[in-house]
């Protein structure tokens, strides 16, 4: 059984059930290191309305047990927002959901990609109930010690107010032919 099918036992949320889990499907449409355009800013394919179940799923997957993060009833009484508190790295889940399997930013789904470093700047925590809009800009690509790096800036906003930024960097296969080598492995 393929991994994307096996993990279905862990699906908990409506977004997870709707999400295209097979990253090997449609790889021909992913942006590649050698063709990606550096500089233009554009919106992600869709927004992310933060539901309680989304935050709970991420917090539990990280092993959190603080009732402010995993017990909605407790959080309603004791959290500063009256809602469960999202793990600070929850931003990454929003990113993967908002980037569609086609078009801008799809290189984050690339088979054969490696993750060397990441940065997340939190201006305000993500709060349940917010509609998060994501913009993306591929800021840089470079070759270092034979590896092909690419960095994307993601900006997360709610109601026009910036909530956070993330600089995502990956080491990618350099061409579509290189991606193919991993996609058909």
């Amino acid at each position: 059984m393929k991994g994307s099918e096996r993990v279905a036992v862990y699906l908990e949320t409506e977004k997870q059930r709707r999400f295209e889990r097979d990253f090997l499907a449609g790889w021909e449409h992913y942006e590649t290191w050698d063709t990606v355009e550096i500089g233009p800013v554009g919106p992600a394919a869709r927004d992310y309305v933060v539901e309680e179940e989304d935050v709970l799923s991420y917090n539990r997957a990280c092993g959190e047990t603080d009732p402010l993060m995993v017990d909605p009833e407790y959080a309603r009484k004791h959290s500063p927002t009256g809602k469960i508190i999202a793990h600070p790295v929850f931003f990454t889940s929003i990113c993967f959901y908002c980037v569609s399997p086609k078009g801008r930013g799809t290189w984050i789904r690339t088979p054969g990609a490696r993750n060397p470093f990441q940065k997340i700047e939190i201006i305000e925590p993500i709060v349940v109930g917010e509609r998060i809009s994501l913009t993306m800009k591929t800021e840089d690509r470079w070759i270092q010690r034979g590896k092909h790096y690419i960095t994307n800036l993601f900006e997360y906003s709610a109601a026009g107010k910036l909530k956070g930024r993330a600089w995502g960097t990956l080491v990618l296969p350099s061409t579509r032919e290189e991606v193919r080598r991993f996609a058909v492995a």
Partner: protein
Amino acid sequence: MHASIRFNDVPVGTSLHPIRQEISQAFIDRYAVASQDFNPVHIDPEWCSRAQVFGTPKTVAHGMATMSLMTSVVIRAWGATAGIRCIESKFTKPVEVGQTLTIQGVVREWHPIGPGRNFVIVEVRAQDTNGDLVGISRIEVALAD
């Protein structure tokens, strides 16, 4: 305990309670679903044995899971409402399935900027079962006066 952490309570050298996490395939799979990162390098053992992206036939944990666990050192020590403002993480070795991570944090920088603006930098290091460094983070945390 958490709400009482204040800037003056955590000088340079303060250690945060370490956490341990077994990286089972179930842990990786559950993180894949929660983060919606279904790259086969994490969730497809058969594909990994053929592709060997990291030179190993095994699946590896998400870098973002390691980043999350490194951040969890701070929120488990200082509370879910800890004022984390920035996380920078570098991943130095792939985390193969079956490893157990030990993750420890230490206050490395203390920034007395002024009332309401004070912050610290916590350095968090994650080591695998062999004691090898797999990730290191620099986490900026704003603290109450």
